[in-house]
């Protein structure tokens, strides 16, 4: 079905439930669905498994750690390099209240792609000889070792796009594309916050990145820049 357009991010999350697995787009603040994540906090759902590249620092996904809503984080950047700026999430983790599944960034997104593409599992060379291979099947192809990684689907995907048309086709701006298009393919329900919704035919059909088939809900939200923090995402 073409997507339903919701008046607020809060409304768009009407059926999010305790214990859900939620894929969240964005690389740092760029392409991150800030409005949907705040609405997720406001919904008060608990025991969430969050799949995302990184946690914020007091903002973005760290908001859900502050309220103790995250049970598990699967991603490549669970903590910042600098110990001085500890996130709510790291505190939660240190208190034993949240788990972390650390994954190479490319393995994470390939696992999500596999879920959306009907692939059960794949053999990747990334992580061989490191803790990433712990507990995983290894196998040699053409003389090289590979690790078996399995598909990683979500119950919901919260993504940020630039423009949508009413059929749910999405475009992105520059590096704000990142994980969003793949996450859109891999959840039972995909919810996109966008800056504008246009009529079908107004987007260049050669430049649509997410075909509308993947988008269940839209909400129009103001852009949320978080300028000052971007620069120090990893510190």
């Amino acid at each position, binding site marked *: 079905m073409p997507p339903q357009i919701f008046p607020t991010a809060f409304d768009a999350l009407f059926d999010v439930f305790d214990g859900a697995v939620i894929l969240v787009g964005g690389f740092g*603040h760029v392409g991150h669905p800030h409005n949907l994540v705040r609405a997720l906090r406001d919904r008060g759902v608990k025991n969430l498994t969050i799949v995302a590249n990184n946690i914020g620092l007091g903002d973005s996904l760290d908001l859900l750690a502050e309220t103790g809503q995250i049970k598990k984080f699967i991603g490549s950047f669970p903590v910042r390099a600098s*110990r001085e700026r500890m996130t709510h999430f790291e505190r939660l983790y240190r208190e034993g209240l949240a788990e972390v599944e650390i994954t190479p960034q490319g393995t994470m*997104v*390939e696992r999500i792609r596999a879920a959306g593409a009907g692939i059960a599992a794949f053999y990747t060379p990334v992580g061989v000889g490191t803790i990433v291979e712990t507990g995983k099947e290894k196998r040699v192809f053409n003389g090289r070792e590979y690790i078996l990684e399995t598909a990683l689907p979500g119950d919901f995907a919260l993504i940020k796009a630039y423009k949508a048309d009413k059929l749910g086709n999405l475009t992105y701006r520059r590096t704000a*594309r990142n994980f969003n298009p*793949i996450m859109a393919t891999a959840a039972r329900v995909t919810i996109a916050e966008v800056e504008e919704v246009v009529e079908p035919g107004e987007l260049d059909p050669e430049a649509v990145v997410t075909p509308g088939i993947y988008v269940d809900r839209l909400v129009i939200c103001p852009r949320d820049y978080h300028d000052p923090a971007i620069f120090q995402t990893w510190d």
Partner: protein
Amino acid sequence: MTQLSSRPGISRELMAVRAARELRPGMYVNLGIGLPTLVSNFIEPGIILQSENGMLGYGPLAEGPERDPDLINAGGQYVTMLPGACFFQSADSFAMIRGGHIDVCILGGLQVSEKGDLANWIVPERGIGSIGGAMDLVTGAKRVIVLMEHRDRQGRPKILKECTYPLTGRRVVSLVITDLAVIDVTPDGMVLREVAPGWTPEEVQAVTEPRLIVPPDCQEMNF
């Protein structure tokens, strides 16, 4: 030894300049978070930078009004785009990396072993770390260069017989560039190609755990 453990080497800028000399026009290059991003200030025209957050062809860091909030590198820094830049989503970006299409990757390091093992994602005392795209990059890039300080903050060698920290990749490093030396990782062992101005091969050896092979043509770094 105490003296050597704290005597300064070249500056971070000169380290970046030296690393930039490993790159040639036409190469596709990924620069890791931290010190390696500095390299982008010193590269020749025609070197094409890939950023794993989904971009090929970024330019120097963006300043002031040219900053676009949707245009960052993987280090979270605002960058500019050069003519012919293009964007792609993360699965395509890591297909590019894992698939062996990047010529050179320059990464920071916590420890490098004699055999080219790299540890750069977790300090064990902390108990938790961030892998980011580093494992993908060391696995996929045709050539991995580590750009790091030669000694840690306590003055201890970061080039070791065996890494003691959890690895990022096993036998993946080709070249190590530090504030004191340029060291090739070869099947025969580590070869000291260049030393920093004011340093002798013996002095570099003294702050390096594995035995360094010093060839007759070992020279002073030039920039």
